[in-house]
């Protein structure tokens, strides 16, 4: 396990060094450097936002806004090596604000992946691939998980999604949420404990 942890740290150091170089290049006027940052973090940003919002188009829009904001305020980033956690903080805050501002239109009966009519094909319109309509039990489980996670306090929800679901390292989650690593561990534990109780019928 120590070797694995050491490899993780090495990979993370390499990633941070690349981020710092890309930030410097962007500030020097090279927008292709910022493109590399987009490619490095867009999947993680969209995944976290999608889990928070439940709608892929909303998630894409929020992530676009987050990247634009990050670009505008790139000079204010104190440590360019921490671009990733800084961007995820922007993404998380925008997603949470979006959640608070929108009216609750999510229907548990239809499932999560609501797509607007006439959307261009960022996703395969013929599929509805994220949902297997024939599997009512799977839908029921997904809806139950959604409802249970929605009941969690915000900090626990964020810590659970970032660490337990997305697998972001605890140190980085602490940077994103601006708290200690112990706080991250505690919030994750409390969230898991609560979900184990509320989803007990699905865990046997």
């Amino acid at each position, binding site marked *: 396990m120590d070797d694995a942890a050491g490899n993780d740290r090495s990979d993370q150091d390499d990633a941070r060094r690349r981020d710092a170089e890309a930030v410097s290049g962007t500030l020097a006027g090279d927008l292709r450097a910022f493109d590399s940052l987009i490619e490095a973090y*867009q999947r993680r940003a969209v995944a976290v936002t999608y889990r928070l919002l439940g709608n892929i188009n909303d998630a894409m829009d929020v992530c676009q806004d987050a*990247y*634009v904001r990050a670009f505008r305020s790139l000079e204010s980033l104190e440590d360019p090596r921490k671009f990733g956690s800084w961007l995820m903080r922007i993404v998380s805050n925008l997603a949470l604000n979006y959640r608070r501002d929108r009216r609750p239109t999510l229907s548990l009966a239809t499932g999560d992946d609501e797509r607007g009519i006439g959307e261009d094909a960022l996703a395969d319109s013929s599929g509805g691939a994220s949902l297997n309509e024939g599997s009512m039990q799977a839908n029921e*489980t997904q809806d139950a998980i959604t409802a249970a996670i929605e009941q969690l306090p915000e900090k626990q929800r964020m810590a659970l999604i970032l660490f*337990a679901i997305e697998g972001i390292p605890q140190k980085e989650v602490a940077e994103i949420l601006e708290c200690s690593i112990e706080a991250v561990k505690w919030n994750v534990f409390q969230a*898991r404990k609560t979900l*184990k109780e509320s*989803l007990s019928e*699905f*865990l046997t």
Partner: protein
Amino acid sequence: MTDDRTQNIERLLSERRDGRLSAEDLAEIERAITGDSANARSAEAFDRLGALLKDWRIVPDTVDWQTSARRVSERVRADRSSAEEPDAGRLASTDRLVREWAGPMPAVDWPALSTRISNAVREEAGRAGQTRRTRWSWFVKASAPLATAAVIALAATWWITTGPKLPIDGGSSGASFVMVALEMPVAVGKVSISFDLSPVGAPDRPDAESGGRAIAYGPKINDTLDSDADAFFY
């Protein structure tokens, strides 16, 4: 098992699949699972929960990431372009609006204006001089009574503390008197008291008995006492 230990075990069980526990913690988990079926069920429940959460709200596989990245890039470039718009271009319309609002400058008789300003300044200067004189006279009027009152107060204080004492002369002038009490009055006897009225520091005079009244309090005296033994002297 204490609540803390129970909670600690539960926490370790929840973190079992995170891949970040020490060998010691993993050993403790194994002991807890082996020795207690409730812990074993709890561990399975946490494992199952982890699997469910991993499958929850997965981003659709059909998302076109290249297109998404290109759109973000285009939007960033568009945002930068709008931010770099020349200030002159943006502000030119504002300048035009301000000029239209202000209107043309009316014709002004500058020499007449100059004369008028000068006269007003001279007039103001004269008033300022009067104001200074007025200010000084006010000061004198206000301060003189205060100074006079202070002098009177000082004089009265001096008179009271250092002025000549009034003579001790019976009750004619309401002057000071000295009361003498005998600690051990006797039935008969004579007490004489003399006063030295000379100023303090003056040499003692032999005829210091310059008179004065004295009252000596003693016990009640029998009426048979003769005049030489009057109990009360004055």
